[in-house]
């Protein structure tokens, strides 16, 4: 069984910077981590591998330094890593990103299941998984909180508004994972050392390697453009209430009734 896990390196969200020219993120010099839900996606693949002869490829797209998350994926137990990196990929929206990743998965050969995190916490779009599933023409199950393989099919719990659906799909398919799906394992020391050797099975692919044109990926291939970015004005006018607890309580009720907020319904 061949499993593909999509992982993304993301900047630590507490200190982000924006390129004033392009409106895109400045990723250089910012501490980076593996997107939290991608770790759960990888764990799900690893737990299948624990009980079978499955082989796991981790694929990421990003700047050259994103090789760190590929190594991390290998140190958790993945078998092989592919990093898509090319200046032509920079500034991609989800359309252009799914074009690049979709072509890379196709080039990588047959697979049974693709796992991805529900969304990355830098963009929070949750679009890449379904877009890749459509690109590859395979079914998708998003927001998955439980999963089992049964006679060549996947049965998964998909979270919906105010409930949960149990759905079944044949393979191959793409699954996007929630954090509640599992508890990711830690890398072992031995595997960490193995993941950074010269012989480590990591391939680095550019636009030509996956057979796409420069104008179809990156900023040039994007259908949406960022017009501007701004920091939301935290500018609430904070009003301080003082006095005895009952003064304060009356003040709060007054504040809310003045604004016609309905209480106690």
């Amino acid at each position, binding site marked *: 069984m061949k499993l593909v896990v999509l992982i993304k390196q993301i900047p630590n*969200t507490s200190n*982000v910077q924006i390129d004033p020219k392009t409106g895109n993120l400045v990723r250089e010099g910012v501490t980076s981590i593996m997107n939290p839900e991608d770790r759960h996606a990888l764990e799900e693949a690893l737990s299948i591998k624990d009980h079978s002869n499955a082989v796991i490829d981790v694929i990421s797209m990003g700047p050259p330094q994103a090789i760190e998350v590929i190594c991390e994926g290998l140190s958790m137990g993945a078998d092989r890593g592919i990093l898509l990196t*090319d200046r*032509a990929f920079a500034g991609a*929206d*989800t359309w252009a990103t*799914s074009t690049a990743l979709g072509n890379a998965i196709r080039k990588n050969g047959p697979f049974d299941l693709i796992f991805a995190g529900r969304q990355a*916490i*830098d*963009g*929070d779009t*949750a*679009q*890449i998984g*379904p877009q890749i599933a*459509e*690109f590859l023409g395979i*079914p998708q199950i*998003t927001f998955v909180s439980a999963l089992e393989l049964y006679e060549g099919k996947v049965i998964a719990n998909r*979270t*919906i*508004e*105010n409930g*949960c*659906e*149990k*759905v079944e*799909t*044949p393979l191959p398919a793409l699954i996007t994972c929630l954090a509640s799906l599992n508890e990711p394992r830690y890398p072992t020391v031995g595997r960490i050392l193995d993941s950074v050797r010269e012989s480590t099975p990591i391939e680095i692919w*550019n*636009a*030509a390697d996956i057979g796409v*044109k*420069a*104008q179809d990926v990156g900023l040039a291939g994007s*259908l*949406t453009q*960022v017009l*501007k*970015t701004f*920091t*939301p004005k*935290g500018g*609430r006018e904070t009003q301080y*209430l003082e006095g005895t*607890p*009952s003064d*304060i309580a*009356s*003040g*709060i009720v007054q*504040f*809310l*009734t003045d*604004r016609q*907020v*309905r*209480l*106690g*319904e």
Partner: protein
Amino acid sequence: MSILIQQDKCNGCGLCARSCPYQALEMLDKKATWLEDRCTLCGACLESCKVGALSGEIPTREAPDFKEYRGVWVFVERQGSGFHRSAFELIGCARGLADSLGEKVSAIVFGADSDDKGLNELISRGADSCIVVYNRALAQYRTCSYTHALSHLIIKYLPSILLIPATTIGRDLAPRLARRLKLGLTADCTRLAIDPQEHVLLQTRPAFGGNIMATIVTRYSRPQTATVRPGVMKPLDLDPTRKGDIIFEEINLPDSVDVIKILECVMNTESSTNLSQAAIIVAGGRPICGEQGMSVLKEFAEAIGAEVACTRVVVEEGFMSTDRQVGQTGQTVRPEIYFACGISGAIQHRAGMDGSRYIVAINKDPDAPIFEVADLAVVGDIYQILPVLTRTIKDYKGLSTPC
């Protein structure tokens, strides 16, 4: 489009081969050779040639003419026999956009039963028409069936804007559809407007857990498609005098369109948490960890008619379940009022609640960052203030609802 090499001009210097990031130019017998498979048409080689032996046209990008695309569409999500609240919110928003453009609003409704009575309400809430597809295959939401049906309608009617709620269904459907029809897609928008000069949709959304807002435009595809966060846009008041058309469309949906089977669907019971729909939220931080703290918080929440919520530490300490956690790794909420009780206000928590309409913060520490986002700040002990506030609310309700 290709790269042309004039062999007679090529002096074999090799500059072009070195300039190519993809090894798509090779030197063979002291002449440059173009390897089409490896070329991405990036154009890096064109300026490298000193003798003018290389030529090629790198396509430039122009926004196509989208004049024939007209109308603002809302994909209506069903909930039980009625509509998800996002339907009226999105129609209200679409109304404003359509009025700025001089276009019409259509509500798109999928389902299985043909005796639907709610359609007129969509008109009363601002739609000019409902486009309805009834088909057994659309009884429940399934990705590929819905994508197939919606694609079909878009290709037939060519709308200029499509709004889809950013619910679990909408966020499953929209990207699948966008990839199928080659549409730009902006996720989870919290503000939408029409640019007065260019007449494009300005799609504003938070990124990085709300640390940054970005305004995004879709210049190269139509309809301009966005998912919209529920609870943000305002529905219009019901106007039963509004008139509109209800158009029924038939779409052929063979079983082969969708291979996914829904085996079972379990809805949460009424009592279960749904923070995203709560009008008032009372949230507690570390100081409420304990029996007394929980009861003080719950009594207050009950009095004011609120859902209780908490920070990560309260979940870690085992006093509330994860579905009540607000913040970066929990839920994003935007109630009318958010009471932050004993919450210091780390950025990760604020990211989940700073879109609330009004924020009331109570904390002992006058330097707590929560006060930066509060409308109303109380420096004090929640154990002294909350019980009194609970009584005051009860008294107030007693006065305002005589019986």
